[in-house]
């Protein structure tokens, strides 16, 4: 089989940006598994003779204010960032996506209730919510990121609901229902498979957001015990010594930006693959005007067809 046939004409892998993004993400995931084992030096070793050194052969990315090797610290800090970002995206996906399908099929009141909870969650900025959660449940990155996961859920919910609404009113679903298909069959065969690409785009974007959140939390020092290396932690220690080493923050900054950029590129590639219009239009946070009446009308249409 030729390589072209393997990848496929319409595959999202056709885009060079998607391939580069996949390579970057593979490296990041590899580092999150083996990073601390492969780190050239101990990320915690303090060397008073080598403070604020620029990149050199011995320290590829230089040293920080305690003479610790920056490359080793970033490699060892990868696992925490990636794992907690996964945690947040997982929570958001598991909470949001099934509810999005359920809201379309379980009736008007259920739909209204879940929509209002999702609206309410969207009014809470993630950093304030996460800090409040750590105040309530204990200061840990896992707690903070579970809060982020809960706030990612409305995004998954809205996208899934909108996509489900669109497919649930399609003619082939009507035909299947006339042939006596059960709701469960319709959801499994006709809706879920069609909604999955849309969810894939949202997942990639949510992962980018979660990664930004986790680096911000570690930057603020939420849920991190100081000597432990993290991406955001390296950045925040650089901030205190800008006059000695003004170039230092660019290294962890670039690492965060490249990883987030790779996830965005992947989301764009997925989006190109499923075509424009497959993603629902952007809704305002609180739907008080035309958006509400319109989607409600659509929802009613679907239910009338289903009944």
């Amino acid at each position, binding site marked *: 089989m030729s390589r072209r046939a393997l990848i496929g004409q319409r595959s999202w892998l056709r885009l060079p940006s998607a391939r580069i993004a996949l390579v970057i993400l593979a490296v990041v995931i590899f580092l999150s598994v083996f990073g601390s084992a492969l780190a050239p030096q101990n990320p915690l070793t303090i060397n008073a003779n080598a403070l604020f050194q620029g990149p050199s052969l011995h320290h590829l990315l230089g040293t920080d204010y305690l003479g610790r090797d920056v490359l080793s610290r970033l490699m060892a800090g990868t696992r925490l960032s990636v794992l907690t970002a996964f945690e947040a995206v997982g929570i958001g996906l598991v909470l949001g996506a099934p509810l999005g399908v359920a809201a379309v099929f379980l009736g008007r009141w259920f739909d209204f209730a879940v929509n*209002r*909870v999702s*609206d*309410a*969650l*969207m*009014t*809470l*900025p*993630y*950093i*304030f*919510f996460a*800090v*409040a*959660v*750590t*105040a*309530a*449940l*204990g*200061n840990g990155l896992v707690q903070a990121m579970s809060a982020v996961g809960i706030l990612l859920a409305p995004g998954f919910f809205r996208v899934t609901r909108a996509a489900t609404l669109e497919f649930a009113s399609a003619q082939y679903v009507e035909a299947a229902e006339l042939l006596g298909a059960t709701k469960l069959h319709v959801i499994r065969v006709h809706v879920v498979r069609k909604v999955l690409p849309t969810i894939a785009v949202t997942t990639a974007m949510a992962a*980018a957001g979660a990664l*930004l959140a986790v*680096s*911000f939390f570690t*930057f*603020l020092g939420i849920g991190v015990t100081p000597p432990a290396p993290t991406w955001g932690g390296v*950045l*925040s220690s*650089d*901030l205190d010594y*800008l*006059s000695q080493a*003004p170039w230092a*923050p*660019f290294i962890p*900054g670039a690492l*965060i*930006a*490249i990883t*987030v*950029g790779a996830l*965005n590129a992947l989301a764009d590639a997925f989006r190109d693959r499923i075509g424009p219009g497959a993603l629902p*239009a*952007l*809704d*305002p*946070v*609180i*739907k*008080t*005007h*035309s958006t*509400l*009446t319109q989607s*409600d*009308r659509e929802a*009613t249409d679907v239910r009338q067809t289903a009944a």
Partner: protein
Amino acid sequence: MVAFIDVELTGAAGAIAPRRRRARSIAAKLGGGLAVLIPVVVLSSFITYCLGALSNSNPAATILGQDAATPAAVAKLDRALGLDKPLVVQYWDWFTQAVQGHLGVSYFTQIPVSQSIAQRLPVDLSIALLAVVLAVLIGGTAGTVAAVKRGSWFDRGVTIACSVVSTLPAFVVGIILVVLFAVSAHLLPASGYTPPSAGIGPWLEHIILPALALALQVAADIARQLRTSLVSVLDQNYIVGARVRGLPYRRVLVRHALRNASGPALTILGNDFPIMLAGAVAAEVVFSLPGLGQLLLAAAEERDIPVVQGVLLVVATFVIVVNLVVNTLLAWLNRSADGVSA
């Protein structure tokens, strides 16, 4: 309920003048909006309150300290703080007080929460407002020019710049700005805050860098969205028609195209506002500004629950208010379309 109002409106519509009909249509939508808004306000404040109540710390014991926390003293203080009542009753007491502007007092400093918030809110408001202005100016201009000069080097430059900026979190942008303008060039102060009462010049000097750090990402989002919708609007027949009638291009662009294309960009602004508030916390840290984020972080560390609840409630209120403004603007932008269809 919304559908009901709509039906009633259509029934009466034939008899009344279009202008009044339009006003009624907007009023009905605002009314329908309230039916959505009230549950949202109650739910988000309830979530806020429950976070405090969920706290596994025992507030009375924390306040009294280890030695004085005898069971009797704890029970007495619990009663004084109202913590012995059922959760829903506690929430209702807190919510009705909060609506009147009383957010309780800090467990530790005994300073009223609304007072400490009022002290710090101007800092974040200054940054956020200036950031919105900057984001609209930068993003709006870049998006419009990119759409008008579609395919030019400027258009491609805007697209690339937007992709790069959207990968950079506000705190990284903030640090880059500090390095560029404060550490290397000594043009602007790297930290601190002066209230506008001390002079507009110094005030602007202190908030321009943090505001720019927040604004860039939102500006990128606005530019991208505006470019997309403006490109599709500019291809519409009515734009061609307006130009054929000999209207000046600038007028067509502003009154015909931009008005119809700016809806999605406005929606982006509403959606991005919570992200901007998060960015404001980052900016507070990077530029050492005494804002709400610092208050919240300190309160969270010592589990000063009334402060945490108060800050979260105020922030959520701001998000809701901003989105109401955005929604009203959207309704105003769409007013002619509503008048025809309703």
